């Protein structure tokens, strides 16, 4: 890295650092929010560390301590890969300070490389938390030699590099292909969707391959073999394992060397095409072909919802993050209609003894797990950013504004959620009354997600972002919305399955509908109160 790269990377980090804002901000309220966010994220890190330590202790108790380095490497690599896919679009391309940076004496390669390094540094706390937690678990059961600790920790810094580079390069290829088309945003989104779905398909493929190779009945040995076989496919995990298990110098050199070489090699072609891709992505010619036709009027709420739709379709990063759950819901629904649902359940739950009847009450929750983990209402208040003045200066009460935003989330979630649930019900031959209750529960869950998202979005609104990815993927609003929602849904799935074995399914669903509707109503009330 040359001096200018260091200057740029340092500035990029500083410009999005909450600490820098805290130090220089005079607004006490804002300072309080920063501290609140800091505490929230600290709790999140602690939860992650506790979860990883618990997981590694579990591995240790099952006598699978030998696969822990590989599990650590695979977990970090997978997370780094997936998150980079979602972020590349906003960080590497189409960022707002592009003009300012490109007019300064930086080569396009330097700008692209620093943007990548920025993503890498920002993801480090997550990766290091996972790694340290798993190292603690590993140390408890193996009492490793003293050299293992520094080797493990240093190599952790290299583990995310290869998957991030691969994901960023694929993002670059997608941007390059899309840049040549008129509807570049839509194409970029579709290509990213296809890529993400291909990755999930590949993941199942690798798992199946790793499992089938050795027909081992014993579940623990099977898990161990699966990890080992996956490690043979994804070599950086094998190198990490070799380095920390047997201090293999060649493995250390391979992991570090290939990470560095790949970084240098990949950013040469990226640098060459960087300006041309961004020029195409950021430039829009005025067509001057507009002909005035009959215009359509909408209600205020619908007008706001329409504006939200346009905001979403104007940003591939927003569309990918906001729309992936819906695509999954549709795919699950279609898959359930085409394939036998029992075999899908067996595949997903890895032959766990769960029948389709046991899952009846959980169908809406399963679909909600896809759709409800992102709510546009948690994002849109902050996404207004510099344009906040537009909605603030309009002669509409804030309540109407947020009603419009909530309406938009309902418009885009309810149809997909209902489709997924109905498909599952048809495929599993769920009785009509139960199906009806499941659909009602699904709508109630969408309403809850919408209103809860809006509460988080308003309470943790942040308008001074540098890059929309900060709002879409990394904001306090999204974290506070998503994590409790995710854990609660997971617990609820288990709970309704267990209860379903002892109680009437319709009764369980009816109670759930009541509870979720009440929660949705309370959240809606809160939104109305917050928007006063």
């Amino acid at each position, binding site marked *: 890295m040359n001096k200018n790269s260091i*200057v740029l990377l340092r500035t990029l980090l500083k*410009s999005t650092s909450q600490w820098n804002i805290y130090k220089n901000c005079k607004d006490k309220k804002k300072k309080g929010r920063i501290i609140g966010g800091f505490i929230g994220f600290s709790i999140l890190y602690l939860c992650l560390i506790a979860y990883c330590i618990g997981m590694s202790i579990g591995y240790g108790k099952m006598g699978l301590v030998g696969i822990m380095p590989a599990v650590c490497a695979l977990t970090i690599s997978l997370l780094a890969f997936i998150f980079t896919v979602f972020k590349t679009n906003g960080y590497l391309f189409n960022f707002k300070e592009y003009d300012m940076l*490109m007019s300064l004496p930086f080569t396009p390669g330097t700008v692209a490389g620093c943007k990548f390094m920025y993503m890498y540094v920002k993801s480090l706390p997550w990766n290091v938390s996972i790694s340290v937690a798993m190292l603690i678990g590993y140390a408890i059961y193996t009492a490793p030699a003293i050299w293992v600790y520094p080797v493990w920790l240093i190599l952790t810094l290299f583990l995310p590099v290869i998957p991030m580079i691969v994901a960023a390069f694929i993002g670059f290829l997608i941007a390059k292909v899309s840049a040549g088309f008129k509807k570049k945003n839509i194409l970029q989104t579709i290509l990213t969707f296809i890529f993400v779905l291909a990755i999930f398909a590949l993941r199942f493929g690798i798992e199946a391959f790793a499992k089938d190779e050795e027909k081992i009945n014993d579940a623990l040995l099977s898990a161990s073999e699966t990890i080992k076989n996956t490690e043979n496919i994804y070599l950086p995990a094998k190198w990490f394992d070799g380095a920390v298990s047997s201090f293999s110098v060649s493995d250390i050199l391979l992991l570090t060397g290939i990470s560095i070489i790949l970084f240098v090699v990949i950013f040469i072609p990226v640098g060459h095409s960087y*300006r041309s891709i961004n020029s195409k992505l950021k430039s829009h010619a005025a067509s001057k072909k507009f002909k005035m036709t009959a215009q359509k009027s909408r209600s205020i709420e619908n007008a706001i919802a329409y504006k939200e739709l346009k905001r979403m379709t104007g940003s591939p990063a927003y569309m990918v993050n906001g729309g992936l759950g819906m695509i999954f819901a549709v795919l699950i629904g279609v898959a359930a209609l085409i394939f036998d649902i029992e075999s899908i359940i067996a595949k997903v739950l890895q032959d766990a003894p769960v029948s389709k009847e046991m899952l009846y009450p959980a169908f809406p929750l399963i679909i909600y797990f896809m759709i409800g983990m992102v709510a546009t209402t948690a994002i849109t208040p902050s996404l207004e950013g510099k344009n906040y003045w537009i909605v603030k200066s309009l002669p509409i009460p804030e309540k109407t504004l947020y009603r419009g935003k909530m309406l938009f989330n309902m418009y885009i979630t309810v149809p997909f959620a209902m489709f997924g649930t109905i498909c599952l019900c048809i495929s599993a031959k769920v009785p009509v009354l139960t199906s009806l209750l499941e659909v009602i529960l699904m709508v109630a869950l969408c309403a809850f997600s919408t209103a809860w998202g809006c509460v988080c979005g308003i309470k943790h609104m942040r308008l001074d972002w540098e890059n929309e990815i900060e709002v879409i993927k990394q904001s306090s609003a999204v974290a506070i919305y998503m994590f409790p929602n995710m854990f609660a849904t997971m617990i609820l799935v288990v709970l309704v399955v267990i209860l379903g074995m002892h109680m009437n399914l319709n009764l369980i669903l009816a109670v759930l509908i009541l509870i979720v509707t009440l929660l949705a109503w309370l959240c809606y009330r809160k939104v109305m109160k917050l928007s006063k």
Partner: protein
Amino acid sequence: MEKKPILEIKNYSKTYGEGKKAADNVTLTVESGDIYGFIGHNGAGKSTTIRAVVGVLDFTEGEILIDGHSVKTDSMECKKITAYIPDNPDLYENLTGIQYLNFIADVFRISEREREASIKKYADLFEITDSLGDLISSYSHGMKQKLAIISALIHNPKLMVMDEPFVGLDPKAAFTLKQIMHEMCENGTAIFFSTHVLDVAEKLCNKVAIIKNGKIIDTGTMEELTGKKSLEEVFLEVQDEQK
């Protein structure tokens, strides 16, 4: 002082999708000491040309040279001697003013003593010294514009490219900027800027180019172009002739 070409735009064209030409065979030369006004309607192709000059926008047709270096093949040398002030500067909002200026000074390798002196000089002139410790997000549009101007001035560029630099500036700051532009010209800097304010262009510029639908429709020294008429009259006349 001997005049030499600092910015040479030769047959530059930029085509967007569907074959729409935003800039069509643009040719002009800005020499050292020139204050060159670039005027035209909204959407005429001013910003497209300016963004290509400063290396932000990719182009395939024509050539742009800055002090003899090609923007296409030798963009780093070009950028080292160029300063750019966009019409709506996107600065790092979560940095303080002084942090941002230090970032620019670091990029241009300006010594600590030099940067301290020039930041002080220009921040005093634009009356934002007291606000340099505040986050840029707390600045008004005009203050952001002033900061962008200071960041462009602190590395003594040979070519200063500005897109609507007077928008958002208060009358005093606009006057200060005009004075600075004159001083820079006397020291041999070339200034190329777009504006809609024809009065400003008429009083400030020694050369002007008028662009319409991506094509230069008239260019020359202010005297050649206007004669006994005002720039406004000439501008409206040539716009009408082209209809």
